[in-house]
């Protein structure tokens, strides 16, 4: 049924386009120049971006290897095939394209779906991995490629794509294929890098996904950069605090959590982690102050369990000691 509908739609669109083809009127002007702010750079080409010609259907591993190696990771498409290629789908899914860079100590970030965010990344020296659709929404032909530059004068995007090392695309053609792939684009980041057009929520989500598999030192870089960019975001401080905690730097962790609590007094996660750190620093009474204001019943499962667990330990430590250790004041970190 779907296929038939697609065929009917295709015929309709085709018939509709014939008069336009014949008249060949109203060709539109350049796209890139019209979309750029006045005075912006007119061309960029990241020549040094590696190239891995793809095998049949395996543009996912090839494009991902291109982006990873450009971010100074060591890998090849062959290494990535077992991690991202789905034989029955003859392709690779976005979820795994995003998850795999974490294995190489890299973060993945999905750009906001507009032309400006791609150009901003290219200007910053980062190639952009895009999904294209060379079919219709109901009859898609998906393809991954890596944008390495643009040329405003010639109105072209320059790609590493498929078996072509340097594939030039008319800007509007590129945009049609991208638009019909939900304008999906990702970048691969070294810990500490943040996309030019990143928004804090999406970046911190990416950093939190990264934290799970990363070494504490790498997670620290990712959240440290977030603190510098968005000092008013409590999650950035919590993330750095947790990285410090995992690296065994309890005093630094306490300061970061304290900063998160001072920004957002209702942040139960920050208070819980702060309390746990205070407890381990020999300050269970200070820890209980942090926990007392949390309404555990209002929390979601993982956090609620953690809070009640921390409470138990804190109460046990209080009954086992007569006073907190002498040094239990941790000034809030500065960014």
């Amino acid at each position, binding site marked *: 049924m779907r296929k038939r509908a697609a065929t009917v739609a295709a015929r309709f669109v085709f018939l509709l386009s014939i008069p336009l083809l014949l008249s060949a009127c109203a060709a539109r002007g350049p796209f890139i120049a019209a979309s750029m702010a006045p005075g912006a750079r007119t061309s960029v080409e990241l020549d040094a971006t590696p190239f891995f010609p793809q095998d049949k259907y395996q543009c996912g591993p090839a494009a991902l290897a291109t982006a990873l190696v450009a971010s100074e990771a060591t890998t090849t498409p062959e290494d990535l095939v077992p991690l991202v290629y789905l034989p029955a*789908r003859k392709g690779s899914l976005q979820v795994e394209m995003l998850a795999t860079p974490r294995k190489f100590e890299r973060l993945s970030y999905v750009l906001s779906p507009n032309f400006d965010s791609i150009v901003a990344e290219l200007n910053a020296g980062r190639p952009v991995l895009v999904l294209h659709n060379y079919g*219709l929404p109901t009859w898609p032909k998906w393809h991954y490629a890596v944008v390495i530059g643009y040329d405003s004068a010639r109105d072209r995007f320059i790609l590493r794509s498929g078996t072509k090392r340097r594939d030039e695309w008319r800007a509007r*053609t590129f945009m*049609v294929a991208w638009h019909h792939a939900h304008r999906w684009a990702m970048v691969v980041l070294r810990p500490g890098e943040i996309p030019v057009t990143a928004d804090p929520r999406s970046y911190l989500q990416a950093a939190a996904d990264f934290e799970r598999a990363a070494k504490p030192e790498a997670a620290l870089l990712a959240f440290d950069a977030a603190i510098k960019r968005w000092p008013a975001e409590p999650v950035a401080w919590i993330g750095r605090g947790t990285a410090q905690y995992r690296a065994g730097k309890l005093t630094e962790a306490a300061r970061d959590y304290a900063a998160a609590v001072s920004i957002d007094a209702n942040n139960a996660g920050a208070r819980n982690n702060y309390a746990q750190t205070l407890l381990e620093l020999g300050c269970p009474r200070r820890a209980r102050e942090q926990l007392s204001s949390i309404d555990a019943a209002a929390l979601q499962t993982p956090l609620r369990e953690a809070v009640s667990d921390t409470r138990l330990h804190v109460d046990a430590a209080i009954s086992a000691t007569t006073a907190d250790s002498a040094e239990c004041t941790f000034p809030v970190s500065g960014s």
Partner: protein
Amino acid sequence: MRLSLWRKTSIAILSVAMLNLGFVSATQAAIVDTSALVTTDREADLSTVRAQLTRAEVRAKFEEMGVDATAIDRRVAQLNDRELHQMAVDIQNAPAGGDVVWLIGAVFIVLIILELTGVIDIFKKT
């Protein structure tokens, strides 16, 4: 002694769920992962046990999709709960980039012509 797919899947799901019962309390850390603090409420609703079931489900789907048995564990392990859920829901239909470039369809060419001649404009600033 060949087990049906149904039985194999059930055994896989149950054994993972049971394994999980054993160490939920043991692995409980009082420090909360940052990821638990940035996800939306709906996502946080996925309980640990539910995530374990999803994991078994995704594992079975990878097998069905012809992923090499030696790679399945690594692929499941690198996904977080949110991603496992996306895979479980969408592995059949999510965009799978793979076709080579010269497979440009006739319909796509029409779309390009419509755009180039200004009949449709997909790039209107939103």
